């Protein structure tokens, strides 16, 4: 049986992890490679690296990091952040990334999805969507959720699937950072109307939130950052809890 995936997310700036991490067993808390290896060992099913650097050397720094992660880590990982061209993706995949995620660049120029899918295949193209509920409607936001657009979440998600993306990573800006649980209503609507897998992101605060997003939100995978980095939730405990709730997980 296909299992539900637990995905820690690491924010990266200039080749280093950004948000503080509270791992006493880490020699260097800022080293994404070491952190990734520990998560792989602890039972993470996948990893996501989100690059937020804005320097001129970012492409090369990120490629180097991807290579070092791929050398060390034996589970799949996705790289996102500022990807806007075939060449960006080519460099990351060549250095060992399994998937890439595109976000704002795809909203600005949706054909990018088709181009990437044609060149690299659906299986490695994740489209990340940040959205926020404005009135009764979920609206897509750009630049890490800062800039609102008129694009409707569900219409955009449908288009993303039609254009060939392999997966959608949906972050609710209303839930992100709140630790009050995932946006399960919107997630369930996405999951039921689309055929491709949906990764839930934004709002994880405790283990019940993960149970809820798999049961009520019908998510295929759940992503979180700080609850893992600060050891508020251990992946092994989380998976035991999910299993007790009859949610299939890899243990």
């Amino acid at each position: 049986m296909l299992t539900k995936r637990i995905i820690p997310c690491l924010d990266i700036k200039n080749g280093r992890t950004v948000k503080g991490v509270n791992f006493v067993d880490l020699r260097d808390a800022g080293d994404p490679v070491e952190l990734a290896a520990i998560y792989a060992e602890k039972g993470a099913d996948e990893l996501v690296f989100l690059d937020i650097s804005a320097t001129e050397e970012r492409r090369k720094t990120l490629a180097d990091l991807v290579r070092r992660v791929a050398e060390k880590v034996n589970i799949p990982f996705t790289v996102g952040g500022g990807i806007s061209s075939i060449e960006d993706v080519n460099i990351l995949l060549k250095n060992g990334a399994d998937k890439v995620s595109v976000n704002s660049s795809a909203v600005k120029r949706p054909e990018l999805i088709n181009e990437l899918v044609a060149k690299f295949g659906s299986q490695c193209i994740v489209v990340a969507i940040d959205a926020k509920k404005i009135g009764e409607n979920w609206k897509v936001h750009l630049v890490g959720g800062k800039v609102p657009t008129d694009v409707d979440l569900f219409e955009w998600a449908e288009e993303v699937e039609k254009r060939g993306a392999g997966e959608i990573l949906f972050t609710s800006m209303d839930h992100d950072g709140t630790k009050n649980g995932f946006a399960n209503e919107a997630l369930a609507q996405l999951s039921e109307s689309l055929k491709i897998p949906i990764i839930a992101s934004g709002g994880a605060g405790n283990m019940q939130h993960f149970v809820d997003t798999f049961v009520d939100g019908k998510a295929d995978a759940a992503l979180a950052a700080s609850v893992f980095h600060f050891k508020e939730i251990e992946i092994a405990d989380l998976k035991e809890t999910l299993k007790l709730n009859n949610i299939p997980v890899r243990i």
Partner: protein
Amino acid sequence: MKIVIIDYGAGNIQSIRFALARLGYDAVLSHSAEEIRQADKVIFPGVGEASSAMQKLRSSGLDSLIPDLKQPVLGICLGMQLMCNFSEEGNTDGLGIFDVNVVRFNGNVKVPQIGWNQISSLKTELFRDIPEQQYIYLVHSYYAPLCQDTIAESDYSLRYSAALGKDNFYGTQFHPEKSSTVGAEILKNFIERT
């Protein structure tokens, strides 16, 4: 031990090299017929779309070279699918090593299947000492149905071939290079036991 990974422009092949390096083996990326023929083990990777991948194999003559190889060959993911008779993806003929046609998932499930699933009914040296029901990582929209060459099964709305084997040819639908320690054991078996 000379291990060659066939390089025909198929996506993420570094991961396979790195996985072998973690086991202590160097592998060479090559598209040279000469070099591939002389290898002790050949790995045939592949991600992307079936008909365009076949096109690349044909234009480089690899489509006639691969089925003729006598040493152990391991196809991974799309590599395995291309070793079959035919694929529904782009309606393309394959290399005809495994006598089965690759078709698209069509049940009440998410497509592509992405994530960790279990393997069972394990056969051949490729799975020596691998317990049943271990988890492996897959990403695919098309699958090979169960057939005479099935050497591992998995379940996704139906039972399908998680791996195929025939004579010196092996293929895994899953990514052993991304399947944690279980995947590493399977790669090790391919190198040391086939």
